[in-house]
C-alpha cells in the first residue's frame, strides 16, 4: 500500500510537472503583446496623464469598428508644433507587424516617461513626433483570435478568386491546435520536395535536377466552396502595404481595386497631406532600407517617373542604415523582399520625404544578430557555418527522393552532398536551426492528419507557427524594443533645422545700406531631399525681409532659396536697401521641413 501510494504520488507529481512544462513550452518563446483594447486603454491613459505633450486622435474607423490611432507628441501650442520639423513613425501597415506596433508604442511611452530628462525635454520643444502605432488593427487582432492566424490584409470583403462569391474559402484549423499552420500532402501533382539537409523544410522541386516534387504545400485549410481550390478567397481584404500609388500592382491579388481604396490608407494620406512639415518617415514593415543600402540611381530624364532613390539621397539612407544596424547589433546587411505599392515607397517617390523602413524582426535579422540566447558565438558569421552544417547533415539526413533513370527512388549519400550546398531554402533552414536553439516552439513538428480533399493520402500538419518569422522570441523582444526606441530617439535629433547664422549690415552712405543674411541648416538632414525638390510636394524655403518694396533697391522682399544641406550648410542672400539710421530690419526664414527662424538687425554704420 505504501509503495502504491509512493508510486502514484510520484507519477502524479511527474505528470503534473510534465503537463506544466508542456504548457509552458507551448508559450515560453512568444513575447507578450497587447490586444487592441489594451493598446487603446494605454494610449488613452497616457494622453490624459501626459496631456502637455501627447494628443491622441483617430484617423479612421475600420470595418470591424476599431480606431486607427495617431499620436502627436510635442510641447507648446498647436501653431508652434506645426512649425517645427516633424517625424512620422508608422507600424502595422501589414497586419502581422505586431512587434513594430509594440516598439512604436514603447517609443511613445518612453517619451512620456522621460519628458523631464534633459535630452528628451529639449527634443519636445524643438521637433514634433507623430506616431501611428497600427494602421491595420483588424488584422493585428488576428494574433489573439482563435485560431491564431497571420492576416496581412484588412477585413473589407473582397472577391479574391473573382468567381462572384465573396470571402467563401478561408483557412481552417484542421488539427485543432488553435492556430493556422501549414499542410503538406503527398500527391503526384505536388511540386515541393523536402530540403536535403532538413526534411522539415520544403523547397520547390527542380525537374532539371532530376527531382520529383512529391508534396503539395499550403496553408492549413479545407476546400470550403468545393471548387478544388483551398483557401483561395479568405476573409478580407486589401493589403494596405500594396494600396499606395507608387508602382501600384494593378490587379494584384490583394491590392484592392485601385490605389488608396481603403479608409485606412486614404485617411493616412490625408493626414500626411494636412501635416506638410513631416520630413522624415520611419515605417516598420517587411521592407528594410535600413538593413541594407537601397539601390540608387541618377535623376530620371524628362518627365519620366523616378524609380530608384536618387544617389544624393541614398548617401543619407546609407549612413542612417549603418547606424541602425550598429545600434541594433545586426552584424551584416540583411536582404528583404521588395513590395510594390508600399507606403514607405510612396512617401519617398511621390511625397518626396526621406522614408526609412525596417522589419521589426525577420529570419535575416535573427541570423545577423551578433548574439543569440544559447551561445555567445557570432551565430551570423559565415565561417562557422560549414562546420556546423556538416555535423548536422550527418545527424539528420532525411532521405531526399531522387528518381533514377530506371524510375526507382534512391537514397542519396549525404557525404557526397557536402561539397555542394543547397541554396534553395537556405535562409529558412538556417532560421529553423536558430529556432531550434532559441525558440523551439516557433516550429510545429509535422504530424499526421487526414484531409477530406485527399482521402487515404499521406498528409501532415505543422511547419512554422503563425508569426514565427515576424515576432522576436521573448528573450530577444525587450532588448530589441529598447534598442529601436533608442534609435528613434536618436533619429529625431537628425531632422533638419533652419536658422539665421548672421546678418551683416554695411552702410554705403546716403541712407543706403547693404545687407547680407546667412541662412544655415544646423540639423543633419538637408532642408529637403533631392527627389523631394523635384516632386514639388515640399514648399521651397522662403526668406522675407521686413522692409516695404519701395525701400528695397536690390534683392527680393520675398525670396526663395533652394535646398540647404545639413551639418552647417549655408545660403547667403544680399540686399541693397534704403533706410534710416537705427531702423530695425527683420529677416524671417520659413522652411517647410526645417522649421522657422527670424532675426533682427539695426541699420547702422558710417558711410564711405
Amino acid at each position, binding site marked *: 500500500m505504501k509503495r502504491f501510494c509512493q508510486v502514484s504520488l510520484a507519477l502524479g507529481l511527474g505528470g503534473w510537472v510534465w503537463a506544466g512544462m508542456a504548457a509552458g513550452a507551448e508559450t515560453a518563446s512568444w513575447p507578450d503583446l497587447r490586444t487592441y483594447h489594451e493598446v487603446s486603454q494605454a494610449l488613452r491613459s497616457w494622453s490624459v496623464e501626459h496631456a502637455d505633450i501627447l494628443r491622441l486622435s483617430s484617423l479612421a474607423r475600420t470595418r470591424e469598428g476599431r480606431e486607427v490611432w495617431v499620436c502627436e507628441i510635442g510641447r507648446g501650442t498647436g501653431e508652434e508644433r506645426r512649425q517645427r520639423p516633424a517625424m512620422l513613425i508608422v507600424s502595422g501597415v501589414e497586419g502581422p507587424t505586431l512587434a513594430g506596433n509594440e516598439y512604436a508604442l514603447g517609443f511613445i511611452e518612453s517619451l512620456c516617461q522621460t519628458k523631464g530628462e534633459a535630452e528628451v525635454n529639449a527634443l519636445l520643444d524643438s521637433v514634433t513626433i507623430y506616431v501611428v502605432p497600427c494602421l491595420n488593427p483588424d488584422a493585428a487582432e488576428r494574433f489573439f483570435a482563435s485560431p491564431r492566424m497571420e492576416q496581412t490584409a484588412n477585413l473589407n470583403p473582397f*472577391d479574391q478568386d*473573382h*468567381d*462572384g462569391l465573396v470571402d467563401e474559402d478561408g483557412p481552417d484549423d484542421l488539427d485543432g491546435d488553435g492556430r493556422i499552420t501549414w499542410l503538406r500532402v503527398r500527391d503526384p501533382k505536388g511540386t515541393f520536395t523536402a530540403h536535403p539537409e532538413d526534411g522539415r523544410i520544403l523547397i520547390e522541386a527542380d525537374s532539371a535536377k532530376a527531382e520529383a516534387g512529391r508534396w503539395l504545400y499550403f496553408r492549413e485549410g479545407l476546400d470550403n466552396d*468545393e*471548387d*478544388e481550390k483551398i483557401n483561395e478567397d479568405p476573409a478580407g481584404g486589401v493589403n494596405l502595404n500594396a494600396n499606395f*500609388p507608387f508602382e*501600384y500592382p*494593378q*490587379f494584384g491579388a490583394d491590392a484592392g*481595386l*485601385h*490605389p*488608396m*481604396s481603403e479608409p485606412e490608407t486614404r485617411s493616412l*494620406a490625408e493626414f500626411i*497631406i494636412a501635416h506638410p512639415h513631416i520630413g522624415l518617415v520611419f515605417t516598420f514593415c517587411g521592407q528594410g532600407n535600413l538593413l541594407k543600402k537601397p539601390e540608387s540611381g541618377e535623376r530620371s530624364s524628362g*518627365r*519620366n*517617373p523616378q524609380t530608384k532613390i536618387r544617389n544624393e539621397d541614398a548617401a543619407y539612407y546609407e549612413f542612417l542604415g549603418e547606424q541602425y544596424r550598429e545600434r541594433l547589433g545586426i552584424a551584416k546587411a540583411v536582404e528583404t523582399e521588395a513590395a510594390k505599392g508600399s507606403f514607405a515607397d510612396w512617401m519617398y517617390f*511621390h511625397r518626396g520625404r526621406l522614408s526609412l523602413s525596417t522589419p521589426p524582426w525577420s529570419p535575416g535579422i535573427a541570423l545577423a544578430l551578433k548574439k543569440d540566447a544559447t551561445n555567445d558565438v557570432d551565430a551570423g558569421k559565415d565561417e562557422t557555418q560549414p562546420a556546423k552544417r556538416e555535423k548536422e547533415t550527418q545527424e539528420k539526413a532525411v532521405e531526399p527522393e531522387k528518381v533514377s533513370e530506371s524510375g526507382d527512388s534512391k537514397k542519396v549519400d549525404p557525404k557526397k552532398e557536402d561539397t555542394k550546398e543547397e541554396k534553395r531554402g537556405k535562409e529558412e533552414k538556417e532560421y529553423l536551426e536558430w529556432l531550434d536553439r532559441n525558440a523551439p516552439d516557433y516550429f510545429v513538428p509535422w504530424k499526421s492528419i487526414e484531409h477530406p480533399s485527399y482521402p487515404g493520402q499521406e498528409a501532415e500538419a505543422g511547419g512554422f507557427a503563425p508569426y514565427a518569422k515576424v515576432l522576436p522570441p521573448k528573450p530577444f523582444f525587450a532588448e530589441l524594443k529598447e534598442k529601436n526606441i533608442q534609435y528613434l530617439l536618436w533619429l529625431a535629433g537628425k531632422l533638419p533645422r533652419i536658422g539665421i547664422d548672421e546678418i551683416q549690415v554695411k552702410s554705403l552712405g546716403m541712407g543706403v545700406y547693404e545687407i547680407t543674411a546667412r541662412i544655415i541648416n544646423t540639423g543633419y538632414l538637408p532642408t529637403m531631399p533631392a527627389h523631394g525638390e*523635384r*516632386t*514639388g*510636394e515640399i*514648399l*521651397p524655403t*522662403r526668406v522675407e525681409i521686413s522692409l516695404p*518694396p519701395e525701400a528695397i533697391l536690390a534683392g527680393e*522682399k*520675398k525670396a*526663395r532659396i533652394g535646398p540647404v544641406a545639413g551639418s552647417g550648410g549655408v545660403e547667403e542672400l544680399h540686399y541693397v536697401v534704403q533706410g534710416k539710421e537705427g531702423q530695425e530690419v527683420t529677416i524671417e526664414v*520659413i522652411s517647410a521641413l526645417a522649421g522657422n527662424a527670424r532675426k533682427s538687425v539695426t541699420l547702422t554704420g558710417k558711410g564711405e
Partner: protein
Amino acid sequence: MNRKMKCVIWVICVGLVSGLIYELFVSQEAVAQERQNLFKALGAPAERRVEVAWNRFYDSEGLAEILKRLHNAFPSLTRLYSIGESYQGRPIWCLEVTHIKTGDPARKPGMYIDGNIHGNEVQAGEVVAYTAWYLCEMYGKNETVTRLVDQFVFYLIPTINPDGRDFWLRKANTAHSSRSGQVPLDNDRDGLVDEDDYEDLDGDGSITQMRIRDPNGRMKPHPKYPEYLMIPAEEDERGEYTILGWEGLDNDGDGRVNEDGPGGYDPNRNWGFDWQPPYVQWGARDYPFSLPETRAVAQFVIDHPNIAGMQSYHNNGGMILRGPQREGGDMQPRDDHVLSAIAAKGELMLPFYRSMVIWRDLYTLWGGEVDWFYGARGILAFTNELWTSQNLYRSGRTDDEAEVEFIKTLLMNEGLTAWKEYDHPTYGKIEIGGFHKEWGRVPPSFLLEEECHRNMAFTLYHASVMPQAAFGEIRVEPAGEDLFKVWVEVRNDGMIPTRIEQDVKNHINPPDVVSMPEERVISSGRVADRYFKRVEPVRVRPYRVELPSIPGLSSEWIQFIVRGKEPVVVTCHSTKGGHIQHEINLSAR
C-alpha cells in the same frame, strides 16, 4: 360699405372674371393653335412634354432643372439621383433612362455618358442633356429609341464638374481658363493659396489679352483687321507691340500676374489607372480619386458592373478618342478592333471628327478617365472632343481671318472686343482686347444643337452594339431512363463581347454563369465543337458552368446531363450581357 371698399371689391371681381375668361377661352385657344400649327422636322418630335432651347448654355442648376423636368414628365422611363457632391457641395446629378417595366435596371447592359470634367468644356453638358431629352421624348414615337430604352439602361450625367462649369459660365474667363475644379491649390508654391486670379479689367465679361506698345515688340497689327488681330513682324522688321498676357493684376505683389487662380489642376488626371504624381503628370493632385468628383464617379461605376459602354465629352478639336493614354498602356488587340469599328462609324456621323488613339495621335497623359474605364473596369470607352472650327465654313478653313469674318458677318460682331486703351497699375498705358470666352472651343448657338444631335447619335450607335445575352437553340436527347442530354445555345446579339479581352485577362468581373438547379445536374461541359461533338467537361460544381466570355455576334453551347423528366429552368447570369432564364420542356421531345 364705404366707397373705397367698393372700388377694391370691384377691381378684384374684374380681375377674377378676366382671368376666368382667359383660362377658359383665350389660353385654350392658344394651346389648340399650338397643336394645329406644329409639325415635325426629322430628328425631333413636334410635340414635346419638356420644352428646352438647345441654342444656349445652362449652368449646373439649369442642367439639373432640365433633368428634373424630364423625370417629372416621364416617371416610368427615368430615375433621378445624385451620385455624390462636388467640392463646393453641388450635387452631381444622374438621370437614369430605361423603361421600368422591362426588367431590373441593374441587370440591363448599361451605357454610361458623362461630360464637362473640364470646367470650361461646357457644351458637353448640353450634349448629355440633349441625349436624355431625345430618349425620353422619342420613346414610343420611334422604334429604334423604344427598343434601346426597353433593352438597355442609360446613365446620363451632364456635368461631373459642376463647380468648374459654374465658375466658367458665371465669371469672366478665357476659352481655356479653368479646366480645373475649385479645390484650392497653391500653384506658385508661395504659401498662399489661389491668391492671384485673372481680372476682367475692361468689364466686357471675358478675360482677353493685354498688349503694350513696344518698339522692341515682335507683333504688329493685322493689315485687314487691325482692331482685332495681330501678326508677327518680319524677321528683319521692328514690331510695334508685345503681348503681356491675359487680363489681370499682380494681386499678391510677387512680381507675377495671374499665377495662382482658383483650383489649378486637371481632374482628368486624377483617375486610378496608370496614375502618376504632378511632377510627371501636371495637375494630377495628391493621389488617385483624391477629388470628390472623380471619386463619386468611380464608386458609381464600381457599384454598377452592368455598365458595358462609356462615353465622355470634352472640347475641342473634333476627335473620337480611345486609349491607351500612354505608349505601352493596356489595350488588347481584339478590344481595339471593336473600338476602331465603332469610331469609324462615328467618323461618318460627325463631319471633320477623326478617330484617334490618345498617346499616339494626341499626347501622352497619365491617370485619365477613359483609361480607367477601359483598363481598370473592362468597359469600352471613348472621349469625344466636341467642336472643330472646321465646321464654321464646312470647308476646313480655320485661320484667324476666317474667324473674324464669321464673327462680323454671321454673329453681327458678337464674340470679339476691339483693342482699347487701359491704364494698368504696373504696366502703365496698355491695350486690352481679343476673342471672348465663348469663341473657339464651344460652338455658336445655331451650331450647338447640331453638335448635340450628331454626338448623341454616335453614343446611341455604341449602345446598340452592347452585349445582349439570349438563349438560342435548345437540343434535348434522351440518354436513359429519366436522363437527358441537353445542349443550350447562349447567344450574344451584340457586337461587343459579354466580357472584353481586358476584362477576361485581368479577371475584372466574374465570368458569365450558365446554370441549372443543382439537384438536376449530373454533369456538364462546354461544347468546344458542336459538329464533331467535342465537349470539355466541367470538373467542379457542374450545375454552374463558368464561361470566360461570349464573343460578339456569336454563341457558346453548354451541355448539361440532366436527371428527371420535369421541366428544368436554365439561367444565364452575365454581368454586362444581362440576366436571362428559360424553361426547358424535356419530355415533350
